[in-house]
């Protein structure tokens, strides 16, 4: 069922995209690590959610998208967000609640985006973003914009939501260029997949929607680049919606408050439990695309970039409730004026 990476010698284009993806994976991992550290230090309110183990999948998706595409990432998509074009500053500002960030302290952590850039800020309700992506794609069809795709991300658990079902069906009926990426990371919070669904494989759901379906071993960056890239291309070329089921293991707690003690050792020790970042690194070194020294330089540069961003944001103003505009609607003339 898994698409395994071709063990043939890889051409230049492959090394390029592998390295590009790797660098976004690394950025995401290091950024996540920083958020985890800030959380432990009590510097972040609410939760922190990491994409550890999901970077290969997410970065491959972000890279496969053009800047004019639509992207609705979920909680574990730091890599995809960066690859799609999010700045580290936007991420840090949102987690720290800076008034200069895209969410201006009104929303936080993984709930960030810039809708006008095709980058959608998730609401928490799982499955709810997919039909929103459909809507953008339908609007583009009205506007006769062709060649763009919309990608939505989800976890294994969220396939149980009615919202997922309705949106998948909607995309299929309207033949939209939706790429639906399901990270089957074996758990939804503490709930194992056996308590979440009863099909042999989530990929079995595709046929019921009449949607082309792809499976991929998400611990393997090479496979992700190929499968995700291929699905995006298919959608872009008029192939209609694409469902990608990616297998991996969540290599962290649900959030940083969770020690994930419930993850069974059998899974940790299986190939699913491999760290995609390590696997990607090993491929790079084995293929001699760059050497270990270069990897270390990348790593330290990214760390510096992140530290600078955090330092900058920590100096930035927090939102001020007195100057805050407490208005939930755009039409100023229609706001309620009474006091309650």
């Amino acid at each position: 069922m898994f698409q395994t990476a071709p063990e043939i010698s890889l051409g230049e284009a492959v090394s390029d995209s592998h390295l590009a993806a790797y660098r976004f994976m690394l950025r995401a991992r290091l950024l996540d690590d920083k958020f985890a550290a800030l959380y432990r230090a009590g510097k972040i309110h609410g939760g922190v959610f990491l994409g550890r183990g999901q970077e290969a999948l997410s970065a491959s998706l972000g890279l496969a998208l053009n800047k004019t595409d639509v992207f609705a990432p979920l909680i574990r998509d730091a890599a995809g967000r960066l690859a799609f074009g999010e700045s580290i500053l936007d991420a840090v500002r949102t987690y720290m609640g800076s008034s200069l960030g895209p969410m201006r302290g009104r929303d936080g952590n993984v709930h960030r985006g810039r809708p006008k850039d095709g980058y959608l800020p998730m609401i928490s309700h799982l499955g709810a973003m997919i039909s929103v992506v459909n809507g953008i794609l339908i609007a583009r069809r009205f506007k006769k914009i062709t060649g763009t795709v919309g990608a939505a991300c989800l976890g294994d658990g969220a396939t149980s939501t009615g919202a997922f079902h309705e949106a998948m069906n909607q995309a299929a009926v309207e033949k939209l260029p939706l790429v639906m990426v399901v990270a089957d990371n074996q758990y939804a919070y503490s709930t194992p997949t056996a308590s979440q669904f009863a099909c042999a494989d989530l990929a079995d759901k595709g046929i019921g929607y009449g949607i082309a379906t792809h499976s991929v071993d998400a611990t393997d960056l090479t496979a992700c680049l190929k499968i995700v890239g291929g699905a995006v291309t298919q959608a872009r070329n008029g192939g209609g919606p694409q469902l990608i089921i990616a297998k991996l293991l969540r290599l962290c707690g649900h959030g940083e408050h969770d020690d994930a003690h419930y993850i069974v050792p059998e899974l940790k020790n299986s190939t699913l439990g491999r760290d995609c970042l390590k696997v990607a690194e090993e491929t790079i070194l084995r293929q001699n695309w760059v050497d270990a020294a270069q990897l270390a330089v990348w790593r330290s540069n990214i760390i510096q970039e992140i530290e600078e961003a955090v330092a900058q944001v920590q100096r930035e103003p927090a939102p001020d409730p007195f100057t805050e505009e407490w208005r939930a609607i755009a039409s100023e003339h229609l706001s309620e004026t009474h006091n309650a």
Partner: protein
Amino acid sequence: MSNITYLEAIREAQAHALRDDPRVFIYGQDVGAFGGAFKATKNLAKEFPGRVMDSPISEDAMVGMAVGAAIEGMRPIIEMQFADFSTVGFNQIVNQAATLFWRTNVSCPITVRLPFGGTSGGGPFHSQCLEAIYAHYPGLIVLTPATVEDAYSMLLEAVAIDDPVVFCEHKFLYYHLKADKLPSEALPIGKARIAREGRDLTIVTYSAMVHEALAAAVELSADGWEVEIVDLRSIKPLDTDTVMASVARTGKLLCVGEAWPWGGVTAEIIARVSCEGYGLLDAAPQRLNAKDTPVPYHPNLWAAHRPTARSIAAAARNLLNQ
């Protein structure tokens, strides 16, 4: 066109919007070739090919889709087949559409049409009045036109507004109300209308209940009572000023709503007047709502469940005699 119904006004407003604004499209169950369960989109699919789309029975995805289209610059109109079914598209309305502007500074100009309110034989799931539910959430505009003219002009304005609008169109008024012609000018949204002038008592109400109140007022005028009737038109925002000014004139307030009693429009109006216009009242304000049960199927029960001209007149008399 003459003898235009409330329903036709809604159709005309949509035709007008489709004609004038290429960003407008309509999405809902059976709204296409069929013209909608109530025929509110009759012939529009033919007149505007591709812009009146049948949806699957997926209220959640219908609203989510509209939000996405709005982000991309469109002005979608979503038809719920009945207001009651909006409960399964609820999350997308109150958490996706209603929060978008506040969270991202990107506006969300969608219109969700809710054919609502009781009709004979409608029963518990084809009669509900959900305006208070939507008005409680920040980020939504909630409209309840009571006349053919308002059905037309407010729907046009709803589509033009940059915010998500829950447009509550009363099914009972669909065929019952007629007007000679459609208006070219109208009160803006956010302004209430004095539906009848009077000096003795203010009745604040909206939608179908405006007509019950008007009938009650006619009955009461036979006894020499002159009742003023405020048609709120918009539930959120509420035009507190017009209400307050009327109460200042009459000194007495009766609020009437077809919705359930706990915490709806009538409670909100009374709270506002009591808090902000306490000195204006000569007597305790009163309210009249539907009973606190699901809406019954049998016409006998239904007639007793919601306020009517008769029960309004009785409540008004009670207040007037204080």
